[in-house]
Structure formats: structure tokens, C-alpha cells
């Protein structure tokens, strides 16, 4: 597998770790952030960060393609 694709997969795992497996650790109200209970803030923050993470994954995969293009 190309390097960029591999890193993209690792990036793609981040939302799953933060939004599924980390949940029992952040199941709390305090500290209240931006007026939201901490668990809701955590979920919202990572949901909003997911497009950013996917954007970087997209860029990494694009890099694979352009590298490939140079070799050809």
C-alpha cells in the first residue's frame, strides 16, 4: 500500500477512537465548555473536526496520485 493511503487510514481511525472508544472516559458534565456539558462538547468538537481530518486524508491520497504520475 502507498504511504499516503496508509497515513490516510490512520487519520480515518481518529474519529472512531475519539467518538466511540473514548466515550466512557469523557462521560462527565464538568468542566462545562462553551455552556455545554463536557460530554456534549467533546462529541460536538470531534464531529466538527472530522471534516478537517478527512480533508487531510484526501490531501495525503492526492499526493500518492501525483507521485505516481511523476513516475509514469
Amino acid at each position: 500500500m502507498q504511504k499516503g493511503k496508509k497515513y490516510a487510514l490512520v487519520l480515518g481511525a481518529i474519529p472512531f477512537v475519539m467518538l466511540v472508544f473514548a466515550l466512557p472516559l469523557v462521560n462527565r458534565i464538568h468542566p462545562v465548555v462553551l455552556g455545554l456539558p463536557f460530554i456534549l462538547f467533546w462529541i460536538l468538537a470531534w464531529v466538527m473536526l472530522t471534516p478537517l481530518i478527512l480533508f487531510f486524508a484526501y490531501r495525503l491520497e492526492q499526493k500518492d496520485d501525483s507521485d505516481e504520475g511523476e513516475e509514469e
Partner: protein
Amino acid sequence: MNAALFIILAVIVISAVVGITAGRKLKMNLENWTVGGRRFGVIIIWLLMAGEIYTTFTFLGASGWAYSKGAPAFYILVYGALAYTLSFFILPALWKIGKRYGLHTQPDYFIKRYNSRFLGVLVALIGVFSIIPYLQLQLTGLGLIVEVASNGTVRSAYAIGIAFILTCAFVFTSGIRGAAWVAIIKDVLMIAAVFVVGFGVPSIYFGGFGKMFNIQIEKMPEHLIFPGSTTHMDSLWVMSTILLTALGFYMWPHVFGSAFSAKSDKVIKRNAVIMPFYQIPILLIFMVGFTALLVLPGLENGDMAFLSLVNQTYPSWFMGFVGAAGAVTAMVPAAILVLFASTLISKNVYQTGINPNASEDTVMRLSRFMVLVIMTFSLLFAIFLPNELVNLLILGYDGVCQFFPGVVFGLFWKGVTKQGVLAGILAGTGFVVFLILSQNDPFLGMNAGFVGLLINIMVTIFISLLTRADVQKTKS
């Protein structure tokens, strides 16, 4: 007739007329009926996608759970984001296969990949059985909306009946194109309603989100963390439900099809990057549910929280506007769902399984007839077997997520066999049905559908390895 009821009726009749007009000049063949002749631009595809994702469930179910269950509702905010992340990695591979072999439906994929018509028929049947509770959900929601908006003067059964006739009318005449056109009306009304009410009610009653949560934290802190106001929906249930619904999301027959309709695999990836922003309105809908809990405690049915609060806060015409948005929000997904379910039956159960020589005309006629049959079943369920909206949705997910191993192994693992997939689907589905019927859901703290999926994955791998060895032996 009050102002609210008049506005609702006007909007749903106008929507139906728009939907019927959409297909007036088209000769309705199977291609136009299900995939709009494959000429949809990016914008219409986007509208359809939003039309599929934002359903009555988002409106009433999410606020209903925030109201009655509390924190476990947060799963609804999460699973979409994870589903889009998965789609980024899985859908492009699916798109390539779809393009190479000219696939239309989900069973088409199974038939081609595993060279098994039986598997195709089985997948089509499970798809249809999973769609029915999702359809029922739309109709039940619509009934609630009209009943509240009319102050109880219109019984929900009549409202469901009217919407049933109108929806069938535009599906009949215009197919998917009708749904896409009505989706425009629906998306505008729905987003406007959610933003106005979501920002509005916390400010009107408490002066903002923060102040509303302050009072909530003081009064009932346990409502805001898992397991909320339930006893059985602790962290483990939330985690397993998020995984179940995130993995199942693109396995819905109608969502799965979107992988085939895109112009290129890059479009799919770019789409996946921006899709998580679709989740923002859900946060606003939670706010309405939480505000309702403080302002109107003790509602018998949590699904009524959104509507009851709007009814109490805003003038009647605005209630009509929200009710109209909600009603159309039920009709569009209902149209899309019934269209796909009927096509599954006519194309992948009848043509694939029973009569391979059936002409396209016959399949088309059968599709139209099945629209009536499936809608009638859902209508009867909605009227006689009322259920909580979220429960209905999760029930559908229990079924469709069973396709996940077959789809994903099929794309990325050469060693998977049709016996493996078949055994996996049967074992997973059978186990879920058993757990639900014997009232063992949740099982060991986990969502029963997720347990079924785990069993499905293990059986698929195990049987695939076994049957693969057989194949190699017979070859040598």
C-alpha cells in the same frame, strides 16, 4: 379549520402537485423511475442525499430522545460523522465495481460479486423488511405532526391516510425525480424551521444555550451523561449503537445506491469530507428537546416534545409552518424508501429469483403495484402498532447492517466466499431476531443489532476460510 392546519394542507398539496408535475413529460421506464435516467446533476444528487438523511426521525425522534432519555440521544449526533468517514474509504471501491459492471441496486452487487442469485434475492428481502419500519416511522411522525398542529381536531389516522395518497401519487407519476423536486421544498422549510426554533426556544425561555444547560445541570445532572434517564443505555450501549448505525448507514438500499450515481470516485471523496457538517442541525434539535424538558415536563410521549413546545411558544401560523415542514419531511423519505423497496421486489426478487425472462414493462408495472402494497403495510403498522420513533429506526438498522461484512469483505478480501457471506447474514439476522423476540435487547449491555453484526462477521470469516479450503482441495 385553524391557520396551522390550513398551512399544512396547502403545503402538502402544493408539494404533491410539484412532484407530479416533475415527471409529466417523461416516459416512465425503469431507468427514469429509479435513477432519473442517470442525468442528475451534482445539485440534485446533493438535495436527494439531504432528503434521505433528514427525515421525520431527525426532527421528532432526536428531540424526543433528548427529552425523555437525555444523553443516550447523543449517539444521533455521532453516527453520521463516522458513517461519512467510512464512506471516504469504502465507497470509491464500490463505485468502481458499480461502473465496471453497470450495477443499479444493492442486490445487483451481491449477485455480481458472489455469483449467486439466491444471495441477491435474500439481500433484497432483508432490505425490504428493514425499510418497512423506517417507512412506518415517517408515517407515524406525520400523524403526530398533524394531530398536534390541528389541536387534536384531525385524527392522526386521517392525516396519515391523506399523506399516503399524495405520496403514492407523485411516486407513481414521477418516480425518483418527483422525490427530488419535492426535496427542494422540504429542505428549505426544514432547515429554516430547525434554525428558528433551535436558536429561538432556549433564548426565549432562558436567554441562551449556556443558561439553559446551567439550570439543567442544577436540576437533573444525571440526565446529561450516560445512561441519562434510562437504566439500560450506559456507555456500552451508546458505543455499540454508534458502531451499529455508522456501519449500517450506507447499507440502506437507498443510500447504497448513491455510490452508483456519482460522476467519479473523487466526487464521492470530496462529498465525504463536507458531509459531517450535515450534523450541525441535530445539535439544535437536541436544544429544543432539553428546553422542552424544563418548560413542559411530564409529556407522556417524548416524540411530541418539539411540537408541543412550538405550539406553546409561537403563534398558530408558525405552528403551521413547522407542521408543514415536518409533514413534507416525512413524505420525501417515504417516497424514496417505498420506491427503492418496490424496485427491490420487482427487479431483484421477481425478475432475479422467480421469472428471469420478465420484460422491463412487466417489472415496471410490478414496481408501481408494489408501491401500493408496501405503503399499505406501513400504513397499517403505523396506525395499529404505534412505536417510539427511535426504536423503529434502530430496528431497521439491525437488519441492514447485516450486509456490511458481505459488502466490505467483498471489496477488500479476495478469500471471502458466498457460503461465508450467506451463513454470516443468516446467523447475524437470526440472532438479532431471537434477541429481540425474547426481549434480550440490550444484550450484555450492548445493542442487540451490534451483537448480531459481530456474530455475522465471525461466521463470515470462519465459513469463508473453511469453504475456501474446500475449493482449493477440489482444485488440486
